[in-house]
């Protein structure tokens, strides 16, 4: 089960990391915080993509890296297959909307994952499934106010403070660092209702694929926990790839 969740994390992390930025363009004048959120949301609506990525869990004793290939269609459909290490190779996962299934070749069984299991953190990683399952647009659930400017990765960034305006959100507040030109989120802090910092997400590398800027390396950290976080790296991405519909079916898990 833990493997399944770990698998899920990779998919979800990829969805976030691979939010493409706009093609490089001139810096805009001052844009209201709400409008910036809209921009970020627009960036976050992906078409289809196929990507190869790696997740490295920096544990207390050792690091573990898991490689995977994912086929992603919008926010709702994702199919991932483990490539490495050999122990995990062949495990597959399918996400359709809020439903999740995993297939393990060792048992030749498809298992549906639901409920509390989706809330757990996995294998010492700093992510819980819920962290990445927020599919709603930020502009729909958060009020944004500008909170300063800072340079990140040698890029000028606007800092926005987001406060939830609806009840059922995982994080009541977020602070995000947004590249003023590319509208990419380069850093994020997630806060609890009491204002306590819970998690951080920091991009350490961005690259241009097919004319679009995307975050290719990022570090997630659960700040309540000791350790050096969990790192995600996108090795290759193919935007607007033609993905047959059959890939997003339970039958493809056993193939």
């Amino acid at each position, binding site marked *: 089960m833990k493997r399944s969740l770990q698998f899920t994390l990779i998919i979800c992390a990829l969805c976030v990391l691979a939010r493409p930025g706009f093609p490089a363009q001139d810096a805009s004048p001052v844009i209201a915080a709400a409008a910036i959120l809209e921009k970020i949301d627009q960036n976050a609506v992906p078409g289809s993509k196929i990507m190869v990525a790696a997740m490295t869990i920096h544990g207390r004793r050792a690091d573990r890296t898991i490689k995977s290939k994912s086929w992603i269609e919008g926010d709702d459909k994702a199919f991932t297959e483990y490539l490495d290490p050999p122990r995990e190779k062949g495990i597959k996962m399918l996400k359709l909307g809020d439903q999740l299934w995993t297939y393990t070749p060792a048992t030749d069984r498809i298992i549906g994952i639901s409920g509390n299991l989706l809330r757990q953190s996995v294998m010492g990683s700093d992510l819980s499934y819920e962290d990445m399952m927020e599919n709603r647009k930020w502009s729909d659930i958060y009020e944004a106010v500008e909170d300063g400017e800072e340079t990140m990765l040698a890029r000028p960034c606007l800092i926005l403070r987001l406060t939830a305006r609806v009840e*059922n*959100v*995982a994080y*009541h507040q977020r602070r995000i660092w947004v590249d003023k030109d590319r509208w990419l989120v380069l850093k994020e802090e*997630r806060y609890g*209702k009491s204002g306590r910092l819970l998690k951080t997400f920091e991009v350490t590398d961005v690259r241009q694929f097919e004319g679009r800027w995307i975050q290719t390396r990022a570090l997630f950290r659960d700040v309540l*926990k000791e350790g050096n976080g969990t790192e995600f790296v996108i090795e290759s991405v193919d935007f607007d790839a033609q993905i047959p519909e059959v890939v997003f079916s339970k039958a493809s898990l056993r193939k």
Partner: protein
Amino acid sequence: MIIPKLAFRNLIGNGTKTWLNALVLSFSFVAIIWGQSLFEGMDKEMSKVTIDQEAGGGQYWAGAFDPFDPMTIDDAPKTIPAELAVETSSGRAAPILIVSGTIYPKGRMVPALLKGVDPDQAVLKLPFDRLRGAAGDIPGLIGARMAKNTGLSKGDTVTVRWRDASGTFDAADIEIVEIFQTQVQTVDVGQIWIPLKALQGMTGRTGKATIVTMPAGTAPRTYPEWSFQGHDVLLKDIKNFVQAKSVGFSIFYLTLMAMALLAIFNTQILSIWHRRREIGTLIALGMPRGRVIRLFTLEGTMLSLLAAAVGAVYGLPLLIYMAKHGWVLPAGQADSFGLALNQALYPAYSAGLVIVTILIVLAATTVVSFLPTRKIVTLKPTDALKGKWS
């Protein structure tokens, strides 16, 4: 009266053979009484401590709450019915709110249940009063097992993360104000106790609870969205465990008893064979065959009474010692059952148990003593006097 006297004289006259048989049979007596009383004691002790610290006189469970299904925990809490709220506000009932969360002891991430309890409740016998009126961080109470698993000590501060009723994360620090000892693992392992009002406030569940534990003698009532669970449900695991163990152990003393009964049976057959001239003489002198059978059967039956006496000689001190000091389980074994098992098991003796045991052994001995004597019915006294067996 002649038959009992004769039977007793014959029994004692058998010498070593009689005493050996009595000794073997006495093992059964002692084993049955010790074994059964041990399980009775275990049942009483586990039930008592579970009632004192967890079950009370029964519990009301909110909604679809099922302690064995973690999926039901976060959606279960419901508003405490007005009638029960009166009881809870005066401490006569103990409301408990359960929320799943995560604690971070020494930087590790450990799933845990956050349990909110009223520090003024008077139903459960755990030191919840230590949660009363503490300043600063939220006061927390954990059991010794939880303390061992997480490495937390009294006075430590631990960060706790949870999701409120609408699913929003938050975190706070909890100060461990007390570590309590309990044999009830279900109030200890994987959980941290904090004041009810604090947890209700933290999770946006004001006035809500997952469980309301009632005092002894509570008559179940019906409230919408709440279901009453009596001892038949709350102590079911204990009863099943004791029953399973009791059945398993009975194989041991049934084997002992079978050996003793076999010895008695064998002794009776040999005795009748060796004493065929005596049997022939008694019948020739006019003693009815039925009385001869009674004589031999009574000898066997008396053997069981003798065994009871022999058993009492060494068994009573042993059983008294056990009652005083208990049977101490190997270190860590008590916890391995997952039930409220004490490290030392104390037997609970009852007159009923002793009487029933004596009657069972007496009946079994009488039956095996009687079976070989049926041969006497067909015995011709003339042949018997000649030493023949017709």
